[in-house]
């Protein structure tokens, strides 16, 4: 085989090509897709997924997986719906993210619990807590939060700006900081990273904290968009963020992934949902198509390792 190896970004022509093909297909066949209103809706629809998937990227880079992001989103939205002051909501949600991330990270890095089990147990706990904080969907979101998530700045819709900010922040951290370089080092080979002086456990904890904080903010964003809290708001996002990350060429075995890939993966998932709506296909087929896309995507990225 003489195919070029994608290196540590995991970007291949398929990961980048898929959203482009989908955009061209939709733009050519559906006039509605090109309308500014649809583009505005679209950026709002994918915003939360993009923010949480960029968090998931950090965890997958160190060969982890975080199934608790969905519950963190739900709990953050429940918190937002019970706080009158917007800053209190943001501060509490951020604190929640830090606490959950630290718990997950310490369990995985210090105790050596498998990430699937560790984050599954925190996900179960937090889901219960979300029902305690807000038993039924509802509550009131502070108007300032709603404006921040749905308004416009200089004619540019706010969701688009949040997406750009999230991608930029993740990209800067991964490319320009020591923490970013260490994430790749730990994911590539934890033992050699350790021998070269990287504090492996601290890096892993940092990745989980980043991921949980991103999930908490994604929950705030989503709650602000629908202007209500919902204790089951994020239920589907745990697996969906993993799917988006995998579609973007990120390897679950660690050390391979990029912000551009995750953006491409989220765009692919979002465009598919949007396209299905426009084509009038039953929304129930969405899971089927997502699954098929995922299978195709992972089948095209041949690895050396068998298993996980």
């Amino acid at each position, binding site marked *: 085989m003489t195919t070029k190896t994608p290196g540590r970004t995991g970007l291949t022509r398929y990961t980048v090509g898929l959203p482009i093909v989908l955009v061209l297909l939709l733009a050519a066949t559906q006039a509605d897709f090109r309308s500014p209103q649809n583009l505005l809706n679209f950026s709002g629809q994918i915003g939360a997924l993009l923010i949480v998937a960029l968090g998931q990227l950090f965890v997958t880079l160190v060969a982890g*997986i975080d*199934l608790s992001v969905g519950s963190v989103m739900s709990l953050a939205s429940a918190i937002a719906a019970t706080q009158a002051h917007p800053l209190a909501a943001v501060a509490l949600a951020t604190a929640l993210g830090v606490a959950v991330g630290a718990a997950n990270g310490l*369990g995985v890095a210090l*105790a*050596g*619990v*498998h990430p*699937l*089990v*560790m984050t*599954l*147990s*925190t*996900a*179960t*706990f*937090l*889901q*219960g*807590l*979300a*029902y*305690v904080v807000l*038993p039924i969907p509802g509550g009131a979101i502070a108007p300032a939060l709603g404006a921040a998530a749905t308004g416009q700045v200089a004619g540019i819709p706010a969701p688009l700006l949040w997406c750009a900010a999230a991608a930029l922040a993740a990209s800067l951290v991964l490319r320009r900081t020591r923490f970013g370089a260490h994430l790749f080092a730990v994911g590539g080979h934890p033992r050699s990273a350790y021998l070269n002086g990287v504090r492996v456990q601290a890096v892993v904890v940092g990745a989980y904290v980043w991921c949980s904080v991103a999930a908490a903010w994604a929950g705030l964003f989503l709650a602000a968009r629908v202007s209500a809290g919902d204790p089951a708001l994020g239920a589907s996002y745990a*697996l969906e963020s*993993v*799917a988006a990350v*995998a579609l973007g060429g990120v*390897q*679950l*075995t660690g050390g391979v992934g990029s912000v551009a890939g995750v953006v491409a993966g989220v765009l692919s998932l979002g465009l598919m949902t949007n396209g299905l709506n426009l084509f009038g296909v*039953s929304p*129930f*087929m*969405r*899971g*089927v*198509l*997502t*699954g*098929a896309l*995922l*299978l195709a995507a*992972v*089948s095209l*990225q*041949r*690895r*050396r*390792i*068998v*298993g*996980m």
Partner: protein
Amino acid sequence: MSRTVLYRAASFVLALPPAYLGTAVLLASAAALRPNLLSPFLLLLILRQAAPLGFAAIGQSLVMRCRSLDLSSGGVIAVVSYLLTSGVMPLPWPLALPLCVLFGALVGAFNGFLIVRVRASAVIVTLAVSMILSGTVIALSQFHAVGDAPEILREMGRARVAGVPLVPVLWIAALVPTALLLRRSAFGRVLDAVGANPRAAGLSGLPHLRVVFIAHVVSGVMSALSGLMLLGFVGVGNVKLGADLALNALAASILGGINFGSGRGGMLGPAVAAFMLVFLFNFLTSLGLGEPGKLMLQGTLIGAAALAYCLRHKDAAH
């Protein structure tokens, strides 16, 4: 002298998978707080209720031993439930039930093929297969509403052999041969070798890929079987029937002492853990905790058990 014996006994108990100690603690707290949960009648019912999870845990622990994972049982069970309850497959049960098991085997073979031949990530492959299967069932349910489960399955759920429900007997009947297979057969040896070090197993000329493939086929069959049992208990078809089974089976396997690829742990550990989890759900319900409190305690207890076990073995390794 007696102190060393005590010490040895204590360290033996502590070295066991968390499921054993957890079950003992749970039974003791039930004896103190809800003694009627410990009546033989209820214990047997809980054992019966734990059987589907037990079957799923057999399959899950097999694939985990060779460093793989199977998250597809939700999808397999959705299809099995649809095939048997919607009337799309008008066959007598002696044909229909084996076809469902065969379907499970085929899904397992498909997973195994993609994981072994295409070298795709097991998490993603089995997740995607589950999404495709349950999505298809949900889409099709618009045309064929799900109905009652076949009488034979409901009969099997109720049947008793000498006072003991049939389903736990079947569970034990499945456990014994798989445990023997792991202990005594060449397959078990190769499985452990692959789990301990896949590269070394491959370089030594062991059929390391075939073992992973077979483990996935067995896991698919186990998913289908637990789907049949769940269907018998519930009595009517339901798309969400086995939705959380895969992750619970994963938790049961870990609490039962299975670790990704260490070759540790047998067949009894996950079975005890499956009983422990289902007993825990019942115990928490009997305490009158609402859904939130139940979820919180459940998460805490599973996390605490996994933490305690892993911390101890980390100490032992150093």
